[in-house]
């Protein structure tokens, strides 16, 4: 019994109910998804100790046996990411309570669907189901990106839709090829059957699936949609897309590469090369931005690069560091986008100078953005430092040049982060209207700041989490859980 998986159903029900309730009035619409996300947090929190202390569990849909029916798997990696996903989902929904004033039923319905898609990707043990949940995530995020219906968001929406649909089609084509040669779509079963199948088809399928997922994760050659989409979307949606949406892509990439194909060395090298490229190029693109949300978007590309570089190293320490950086970046980037959202709430523009002229900031906004920037750059006592330190150590063991590149990128990260901090938060003492934040916006910021600091001051938590999570990328353990 995996209670955490029922969170998918809870969010689907919330998506349906918000639409139903809005027929009568929009007044109680936000309460439904907020309550649903609390239930989801609770369900995931029940599952977490079960998985952490007694090992991974598998559930079959409708009692069909393992390789034939649909498997739902909860292991340490998926359940940890699911817990953070549901917590961030709750905080984002709470933040939206006062932020979104018009068309709220459509907004909350789509956002619930998006969370359902992400949780589905985390729990499924079946590669075709992964495609279906990717589509649930994608279709709802196309709608959310175009939500404001102004020129910027419509252009971003149609761009993201066309690129995203091509990517998911490539994913489906890859899955179809795998089914054609192996006759199964269960990931554990595929992993056992693929080694005995020679020929070019599995390699082509892997390339297609990786290209499809890479676009969803926003790695370097496929990063074009990220900046547009984050700029066009409402700020809480940018936080959800960056904190949760693209992490689903990273997670799916790990599952496909490590479980289904058992981490071939050449594929890890490809991940390493593209990781380093997107790390450096993302940071340089962010440095040149004068638009706050585009800067944060390119910074996401850069941090995803760190994750893939660490995982591409292929060592145990590298994998653990990469997995921990997924968790840390989820928290940091949600904090940054939400604190940017508090400024953008009253500002009409996303250009840094124009924001500074129209909005006067409060200490909470200033400190949340500052802590986010410092954590992102990997300054000690913040959570980003723990995972970045592990990444430096792991890359130094393999290739010291990579450590140098990573350190330089961290310096660039600090540079663009502080540039934005000075431009938006410190140069607006006199002019502009003062923003009075409601409690529903303060709570998410405070919770995320606490998480950033606690995980940074007590690094043992992060290191323990990383050790636990890297166990679930072990192929024999996974197949044992699913098929045994």
């Amino acid at each position, binding site marked *: 019994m995996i209670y955490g998986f029922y969170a998918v159903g809870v969010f689907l029900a919330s998506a349906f109910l918000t639409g139903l309730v809005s027929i009568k009035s929009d007044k109680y619409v936000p309460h439904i998804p907020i309550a649903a996300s609390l239930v989801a947090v609770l369900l995931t929190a029940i599952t977490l100790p079960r998985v952490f202390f007694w090992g991974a569990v598998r559930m079959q849909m409708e009692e069909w046996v393992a390789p034939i029916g649909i498997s739902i798997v909860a292991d340490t990696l998926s359940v940890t990411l699911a817990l953070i996903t549901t917590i961030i989902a709750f905080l984002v929904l709470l933040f939206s309570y006062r932020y979104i004033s018009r068309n709220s039923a459509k907004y909350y319905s789509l956002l619930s669907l998006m969370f359902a898609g992400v949780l589905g990707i985390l729990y499924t043990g079946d590669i075709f189901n992964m495609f279906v949940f990717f*589509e649930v995530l994608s*279709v709802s995020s196309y709608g959310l990106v*175009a939500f404001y219906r102004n020129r910027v968001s419509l252009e971003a929406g*149609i761009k993201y839709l066309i690129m995203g649909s091509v990517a998911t089609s490539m994913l489906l084509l890859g899955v*179809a090829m795998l089914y054609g040669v192996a006759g199964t779509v269960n990931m554990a079963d595929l992993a056992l059957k693929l080694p005995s199948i020679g020929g070019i088809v599995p390699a082509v399928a892997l390339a297609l699936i990786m290209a499809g997922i890479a676009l969803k994760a926003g790695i370097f050659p496929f990063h074009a949609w990220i*900046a547009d989409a984050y700029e*066009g979307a409402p700020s809480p949606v940018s936080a959800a897309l960056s904190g949760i949406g693209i992490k689903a892509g990273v997670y799916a990439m790990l599952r496909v590469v490590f479980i289904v194909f058992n981490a071939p060395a050449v594929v890890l090298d490809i991940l390493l090369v593209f990781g380093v490229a997107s790390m450096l190029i993302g940071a340089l693109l962010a440095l*040149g931005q004068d638009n706050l949300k585009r800067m944060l978007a390119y910074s996401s590309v850069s941090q995803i690069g760190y994750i893939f570089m660490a995982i591409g190293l292929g060592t145990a320490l590298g994998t653990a560091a990469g997995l921990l950086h997924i968790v840390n970046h989820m928290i940091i980037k949600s904090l940054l986008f939400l604190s940017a959202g508090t400024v953008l709430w009253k500002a009409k523009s996303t250009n840094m100078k124009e924001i500074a002229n129209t909005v006067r900031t409060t200490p909470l906004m200033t400190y949340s953005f500052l802590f986010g920037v410092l954590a992102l750059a990997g300054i000690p006592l913040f959570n980003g430092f723990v995972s970045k330190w592990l990444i430096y150590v792991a890359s130094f063991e393999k290739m010291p040049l990579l450590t140098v590149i990573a350190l330089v990128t961290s310096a660039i990260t600090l540079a663009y982060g502080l540039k934005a901090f000075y431009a938006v938060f410190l140069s607006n003492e006199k002019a502009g209207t003062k923003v009075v934040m409601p409690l529903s916006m303060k709570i998410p910021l405070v919770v995320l700041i606490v998480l950033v600091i606690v995980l940074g001051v007590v690094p043992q938590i992060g290191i323990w989490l990383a050790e636990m999570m890297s166990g679930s990328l072990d192929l024999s353990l996974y197949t044992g859980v699913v098929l045994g």
Partner: protein
Amino acid sequence: MIEYLIAMLAVLLGIYAVAFKDNLIKKVMGLSIMSNGIHLFLISIGYRTGGTIPILKDMDIASFAQLAVDPLPQAFVLTSIVINLSITAVALSIIILVYRQFGTLDASKIRELRG
């Protein structure tokens, strides 16, 4: 063999339309052609010449397994068709809004975001 070739041709045609046609409606048509190519590919994987429908009726299991076509790709295709319907619906509604805002469907003229 011919069905695989036609499927791949449809996928390539779709990608060509998405990449090189400027009109947004034509791009969405390209997406549909591409996914229909993949559907044809999936159906061809499960196809068997002279096979019967995969419903177990008046037949023992062994000869059923000999004769019936694979039902799983058909289920995949049904799922995928539903997904494509919703994507096309979202795409067309965004395109209507784009036309109202920009007054054109030419993708090369709808370019304000950069950098």
